[in-house]
């Protein structure tokens, strides 16, 4: 009887250890570079990437960018790639503690595509799934805000916020360069 109980305890311990290892594996797997910046641009412009240009982050633009992000943008200029009415932006925003790299394509003032290129947080990477990013497609800017409500993801609130502000920022920046 005692031997049976001991075997049960050993099995139970191994099972718990397995679950713990699985949890660690999942938390580690959230981090990663899913697509390089160059691959994203090649895909966006069908392997004919235009020469990059820059927007200078100063004056009124700087204030508007700070309002959208909720903090100052780290950098005096923001690089983009533009071909006719399509522009592509690679932007970073902190999720909870670490920067998430997003690739956003804006076409005729609307979101064509948003992708997570690199995710460095331990959790919250569900935002990279197409089922989530699809919500942003065709979104437009209205009074410097998205013209639609984005459904959140439980446990990924900060990552969702990061993606929302980055898409808003990309729309705003695309609008600011549309007169060029």
């Amino acid at each position, binding site marked *: 009887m005692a031997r049976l109980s001991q075997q049960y305890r050993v099995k139970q311990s191994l099972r718990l250890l397995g679950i713990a290892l699985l949890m660690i594996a999942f938390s580690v797997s959230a981090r990663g570079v899913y697509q*390089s*910046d160059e691959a994203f641009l090649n895909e966006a412009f069908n392997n004919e990437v235009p020469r*990059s240009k820059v927007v200078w982050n100063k004056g009124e633009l700087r204030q508007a960018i700070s309002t959208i992000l909720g903090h100052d943008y*780290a950098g005096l*200029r*923001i*690089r983009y790639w533009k071909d006719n009415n399509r522009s592509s932006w690679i932007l970073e925003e902190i999720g909870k503690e670490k920067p998430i790299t997003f690739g956003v394509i804006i076409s005729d003032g609307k979101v064509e595509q948003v992708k997570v290129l690199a995710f460095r947080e331990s959790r919250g990477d569900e935002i990279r799934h197409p089922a989530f990013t699809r919500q942003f497609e065709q979104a437009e800017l209205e009074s410097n805000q998205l013209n639609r409500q984005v459904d959140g993801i439980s446990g990924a609130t900060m990552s969702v916020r990061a993606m929302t502000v980055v898409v808003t920022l990309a729309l705003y920046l695309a609008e600011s360069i549309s007169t060029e």
Partner: protein
Amino acid sequence: MNRKMRVLHRTMGAVIAIFVLLLAVTGVMLNHTSDFELDKRYLTWDWLLSHYGVGTVEPDVVYLLDQSAISQFGSQVFIDASPVVNSQTAILGGVVIDNLMVLATESELLLFTHEGEFIEKMSASAGVPPLIQNIGLFHGEPVLQTRNGMWRSDFLLDQWEAISLQGVGWSQPEPMPDNVEKALAEYFHGRGISIERFVLDLHNGRILGNVGVWFIDIIAGLLIVISLTGIWMWLRRVS
């Protein structure tokens, strides 16, 4: 017996007099910390900072660009004593082009204004060749040495041509200037050791670590003994 006690009393009195003075003076100072603002005044003597282990800073690498010291501590990049940007990869060199300070890591160029304001990171997506090993200047133009050869660009840094050049002035690490090291030590460790902390450590002996604490304990023990011998002699005299 009384004579022996008097000799013991005198001898111990002479030995611990200096420490009684030290304890009394530091005790009075600690009683009036706020009045003397001892918690707001700092000591920056080199030997003291070194004794407390806050005197030195050890950057991963230092480059001198245009009167500024660029240093990296882990992922944090500093220009002089100001943190400016995070870089997950090591800085391999830096050059000054027109009014730009350009630092190179293996995969990116980090651009700063002459005043040290961060401009942007440029990577392969902005046309910068990957696998950078060093950055240098050739007749004022930026040159990159990469694992795939040598590349030259202009001040825009977004178009690079493969080239083979002799006599490029490559960036090289330098020692940290003393004034920047001092400023960085202040950034990392504060303004120095507060007088309150110093006096408190003198009072309780911690200035000498655990040995100092035991030493003060012994002095306290001697004080107890000298008090008892004093009381003994006084009682004898009274009776």
